[in-house]
Structures are given as structure tokens and as C-alpha cells.
């Protein structure tokens, strides 16, 4: 067996390296347990699948980090609704 110079520091480094790697592999699981962003429960709606999809889409939109886009879309939809209102009044 060939000799490995400075074995003790290498040995400690390797143990640390292996342990760190294993810890990193479990890190996403630990993160989700401690600071969960998807803890459920899953929504099982009472209504038809169409309603489910619409509500799921709304939730997806709310989760999107760019709130600006959501606000823009909402403003557009509100403008569409308001455009119809005067006609209804007439």
C-alpha cells in the first residue's frame, strides 16, 4: 500500500467532506421541514375541475415573485370590467 504523506489532516478533511456532502444532500429536506413553503394540505375542491383549475391558476399567480405582472393583469381585467359597466347602465 503506498504511503500517503500528511495523512491525519487529510483524514480529518475527508471525514468533514463526506459528512458535509451527506448533510448537503439532506439539506433541502431539512429546509422544507423547518421553513416549509409547501406544507399542504393539497386543495381538493368541492366543485367541478374547471373551478379547481381556475383557483389553482390564481394561487399560482399569487405565488409568482413578480407581483408587478400580477397587478398589471389585474388592472387590465378591472379595466375590461369597467368598460362594460357604462353599457350595462345604458
Amino acid at each position, binding site marked *: 500500500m503506498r504511503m*500517503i504523506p500528511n495523512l491525519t489532516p487529510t483524514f480529518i478533511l*475527508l*471525514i468533514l*467532506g*463526506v459528512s458535509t*456532502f451527506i448533510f448537503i*444532500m439532506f439539506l*433541502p*429536506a431539512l429546509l422544507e421541514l423547518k421553513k416549509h413553503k409547501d406544507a399542504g394540505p393539497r386543495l381538493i375542491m368541492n366543485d367541478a375541475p374547471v373551478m379547481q383549475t381556475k383557483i389553482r391558476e390564481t394561487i399560482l399567480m399569487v405565488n409568482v415573485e413578480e407581483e408587478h*405582472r400580477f397587478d398589471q393583469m389585474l388592472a387590465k381585467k378591472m379595466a375590461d370590467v369597467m368598460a362594460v359597466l357604462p353599457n350595462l347602465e345604458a
Partner: protein
Amino acid sequence: MKENEWKVNHLIFGFSVGAIASYMLLSSSFVSSESVYMLIIFNFLFVSLTFPLDGTLTRKISMLLIGNIIGLFWNYLFSLFAYTVAYYLGDFFNTVYIILSPFVNFIWIVSFWSISLTALTNSKDEKQRLRLDN
């Protein structure tokens, strides 16, 4: 149909890349046979189960290659660790190694693959967001 067509293309491309990576691993003398089998299984599972999902081909290929790099790095690290510890503990460590390695050798695959799914779910969300905007 068009959507399904490009997912099949993704699969074909993914299998090709996976096959090339696996061939390179098999030909390499630096990687142990057990690790090669593990990486081949990873490539096969990853391509067949992830490439049909939503997401750009670039993202999928990048994840596949990152996975292979992580696997190779782990193989190198653990082999070095095993070799060094065996120097101290001798044959006893071989027993420990054979008992523990199913745990440690597969954790990275499961962990990496589950995170990849999140990346693809985010991609699915982006797609739905774009659909809503339109």
C-alpha cells in the same frame, strides 16, 4: 401534438447525451465499476422520468450534466475517504463500507432528482403564467 413531439425530441436528445456520458464513464479507469453502474442508472432514470416533463431542453440537459458532475465528485470523495480510512481500520472498514454504501451512494440521486422536479415545476408555473397573461 406539437407539444408531445418536442417532448419526444427531448427524450431522444436526453438519451443520446446520457448514453455518451455513460460510455465515457465506462471507458474511464478513474471511476469504480459500482459508481459507473450508479451513474448509468441515474442517467437512465433522470432522462426517462424528467425529460418528458415541462421545461426547456437546456434546463434539463444542464441538470443532467450537473447530476453527473455531482455523482463523479461524490464518487471521487467517497473513494478517497474509503481508501484513507481503510488504511487505519483495515478489513473492518470494508464491512462497514459494504453495509453503508447503499445508503450513501443513492442519497445524492434521490436528493438531486427531487430538487430537479422543483425546477421543472417552477418552469410549469411560468408556462401557466404566460398562458394566463395571453
